[in-house]
């Protein structure tokens, strides 16, 4: 508990409510914690020509994975995700996804396309989180993935990802790729894996946060 100043106390009503007109730097400085679910950094992993990056999942209501400067070892591969229900022995959970991307080249051509060639329907194979991306020295992708209530024994598990990269099939471009889907199982997910469809994760860091344990 922080120090409660006289000015802070004077801003409280008789019911203990801090009036809007009294919320200022001085009053905010007295707040030492806020109730509610916290966002906890659980783990991070920095790739070094790694075949995959895997994390164990627990009982958080939501997981957020942040991808920072993910760089691949082989040109034209998909960044992908899969899940395990047996502690990482097998990554083969059935998934259905939808995906679309906005694409704008440095030469000023653009398109907005539903990604019918990269979504999956009831597939146990990896689900794509990006279009085919490149491995040029300055090429990389960054973004995030939300995974909801992965330990549920009742519901399928929804996930939403949003990745930004700067390449597509030889064209310098901004590509924003959005995927949403669900792991079609009522078993708890125990692990998550990220990898490229071909080659390794040459560099980059993935941070795993949990919210609402």
């Amino acid at each position: 508990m922080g120090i409660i100043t006289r000015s802070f106390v004077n801003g409280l009503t008789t019911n203990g409510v801090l009036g809007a007109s009294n919320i200022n730097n001085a009053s905010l400085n007295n707040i030492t914690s806020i109730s509610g679910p916290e966002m906890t950094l659980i783990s991070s992993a920095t790739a070094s020509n790694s075949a995959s990056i895997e994390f164990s999942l627990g009982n958080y209501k939501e997981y957020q994975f942040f991808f920072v400067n993910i760089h691949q070892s082989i040109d034209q591969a998909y960044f992908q995700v899969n899940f395990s229900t047996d502690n990482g022995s097998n990554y083969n959970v059935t998934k259905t996804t939808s995906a679309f991307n906005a694409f704008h080249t440095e030469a000023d051509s653009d398109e907005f396309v539903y990604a019918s060639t990269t979504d999956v329907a009831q597939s146990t194979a990896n689900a794509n989180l990006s279009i085919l991306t490149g491995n040029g020295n300055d090429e990389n992708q960054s973004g995030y993935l939300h995974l909801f209530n992965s330990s549920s024994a009742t519901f399928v598990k929804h996930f939403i990802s949003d990745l930004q990269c700067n390449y597509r099939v030889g064209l310098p471009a901004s590509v924003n790729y959005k995927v949403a889907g669900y792991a079609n199982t009522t078993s708890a997910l125990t692990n998550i894996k990220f990898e490229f469809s071909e080659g390794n994760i040459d560099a980059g860091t993935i941070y795993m946060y949990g919210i609402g344990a």
Partner: protein
Amino acid sequence: MARFKLVNGVSVQLTAEEEAARDAEEAAFAAGAFDRAIANVRSKRNALIAATDYHALSDNTLSAEMTTYRQALRDITNGVTTVEQANSITWPTKPE
């Protein structure tokens, strides 16, 4: 060369079974290169045609330029037999 994966931040060497599974995945992915490339072309082609569908409604008159443009899109995959060709297609310019 041995592969390594990161599990909760710790580097772990792939087992022989994992290496074999990964090799099989990569071989399958490589074998599908042309299918992916031509599917991407068709996806874009379909989106571009759909974007001009309203020109072809019964109460609109389709201009000769738009007719040519839409036909060029329909023919865009003709003669495309390699990944390189699929990835270097010159798309027709949409008429004003």
